[in-house]
């Protein structure tokens, strides 16, 4: 009993501790990176249950801001190999279990 209680506590703690956005790999310039990261965080928080809508929102905003055409993948378990335009890739974690990959390639 105590163990499950502890593990639950650990889980919530871990989620709380680990929900900050963590950029794993990027080659974007500074302002672009910050903007994109904020956009991803906003989108994921807004559409917490629906990855597709979140991805849609991110993709459309990126297309408007930085030109076509962007691709966005959001998920909890996937592997990928993509070709992207140099200086237009962002790969980050968020929310303890979500991974977001945003890249541009027309």
């Amino acid at each position, binding site marked *: 009993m105590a163990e499950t209680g502890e593990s639950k506590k650990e889980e919530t703690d871990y989620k709380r501790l680990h929900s900050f956005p963590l950029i794993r790999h990027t080659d974007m310039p500074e302002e672009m990176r910050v903007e994109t990261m904020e956009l991803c965080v906003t989108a994921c928080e807004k559409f917490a249950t629906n990855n597709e809508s979140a991805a849609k929102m991110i993709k459309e905003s990126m297309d408007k801001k930085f030109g076509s055409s962007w691709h966005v993948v959001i998920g*909890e378990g996937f592997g990928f*190999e*993509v070709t992207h335009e*140099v200086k237009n890739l962002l790969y980050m974690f968020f929310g303890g279990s979500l991974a977001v990959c945003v890249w541009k390639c027309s």
Partner: protein
Amino acid sequence: MPVPQKAGTVRSKQGSNAHSQSKAPAVKNSKIYSKKKDDEDWTELGDGGDEWTQGKTLLKPPDQLDLSEAELKEEFTRILTANNPHAPQNIVRYSFKERSYKPISSVDQLAVHFVLEGNLLHKDSDEARRQRAKQGLQEEKPAEASVAETEDKPDGPADVAEDAGDAEEGAGDERPDSVDVKPGIKERKLTNQFNFSERASQTLNNPLRERGCQTEPPPRATFSATANQWEIYDAYVEELQKQEKNKEKQKALLSKKEEDKGKKKTTMVENPSDDITKVAKVSKIVERMVTQNTYDDIAQDFKYFEDASDEFQEQEGTLLPLWRFQYDKAKRLSVTALCWNQKYKDLFGVGLGSYDFTKQGRGMLLFYSLKNSTYPEFIFPTLSGVMCLDIHKQLSYLMAVGFYDGCVAVYNLKDDGPQPVYKSTAKTGKHTDPVWQVKWQEDDIDNNHNFFSVSSDGRVVSWTLVKNELVFTDIIKLSIEGPINEGQEGMQLPAMACGTSFDFHKQTDYLFLVGTEEGKIHKCSKFYSSQLLETYVAHNMAVDAVKWNHFHPKVFISCSSDWTVKIWDHTIKSPMFTFDLNAAVGDVAWSPYSSTVFAAVTTDGKVHVYDLSVNKYEAICQQAVVAKKKTRLTHIEFNPVYPIIIVGDDRGYVTSLKLSPNLRKKPKEKKGQELPKGPEVEVAKMEKLLCLLREPESTSND
């Protein structure tokens, strides 16, 4: 006047053409004969030429009726009616109702003389409208052409086009509300040729040219990764750990640079171009492997070689040269300090500077490891020559350094930078003369680290590391005892003695010895700042080193440039042993494993090892360890664990030597004696020796 009548009469005549056909031409002729000249519409109705020749005689055609004159004068009234003379007056039609022929009452009197199918349409009829829609422009052009002719324009077609354009626009503007406005309908602007004059011209249009260009596409790169729950978790855990470390760092060192570094790390940007630092650790290991493979035989000797010849040489031993440590940039400097690291037994520090008063330049602080003899592990260049060095016993990354210019500094090996963590300046009480020795002490009451330094300016100073500063306290000021110069008007200025070395007692911490340039050794206490406990007249020249015995609490050794090494009991004013080494002695050191073994180095490049329990008068080993005879050995240190010594010389080389078994003799242990008793055995050994000496000494002193 006569014209309209003529026309009318001609027509009536024509109506009764069948009757009076013959008369008409005659009448016509006469009429024609007298027509007026300005009436140009008349068409010629016959020949005019024959009438002249005929005159006025009346010709009667042959078939004309011959009537009497009375009958000729008879008037016939003719009534013009609208009746068609050709129309039948008695048309009868069959009526099926009455089954008989019935006469029609009214007969159609209309006589059609001429029928021509026309193609005119009323302009508002449907067909007309339809046609207008289709043929709007075509109708306009003929209309325009006619207008152009009447208006007498010099530029025909261009103006027509211009007019057409203007008119179109005008038409378009004027009839915007018309529902059925067809694109071709124009209403002509009512312009008269007096107020309006239209001008138009055509500019030169440059010829068109096609140009094409293809840009290089933006560069692309591939990237691949896997996003799993465990990867995410690991990344977060790592990030949190890094953040915690950064927080600690920030608390410890409050410099701006540290904060910037911390900020950079928290943004978690991995720079893929930063490859060299990742390889640093690996390359270090590989370097060591390569070095050890190259010098494999030395490493084997270090570990396992025991000089077999020692069995045959009863008392004497040898020194086996092992690695030789040298650094290119330190070639011109002499080794001025050596110190082993207590924690990492293979790491030792070398201070480099110059003993020559005239040749002072920069200095260096190097740290070598036995595992890598080709290159120093740490390098700290310094502005002034390093004169002494001490590594803290517990915190083995802290070292205290004394410089030729009188400064002391504390270096932290954990720091990356070449700068010392603390450095004394003129304001903070640095020495005015070279610092000859520094030694770490126990942490004081406030848990601050502190160390002592002795210098030629005669001060023994204690330095405490308080936060970011070095706080100094003068412990003792050495003064020369004995006859003081009276050269200056009878005033007796106490001259300062110059301290050249010191050592703290191993057990009683407050007790320490200071050797001076005058050749005296003073015994002092930390608590008495003005008084010296004892003074020993030791040597004729400067005391280069003074060292307490590691085991025996009363014994210390001193060496000097007057070629002698002396062993003392601090309770007795005269030395117990004196050894003459035939050359100026640079340094002397007790061995850590035996209370009776010590080694000394001389300026003729020799190392002398003595074991008092074996031979009280002579060295059991005297060996030259440097190739060139001119190099002088400056320092010597025993490794606390391994049976090796390191020797520094004035060319910047450090040579390591292994002690042969004879040099490391421990008293034969009887079975049952255990190691913890080691120190005591050593003490007892020394005591025995001293006892032998003391009694005759005391008797001789008497």
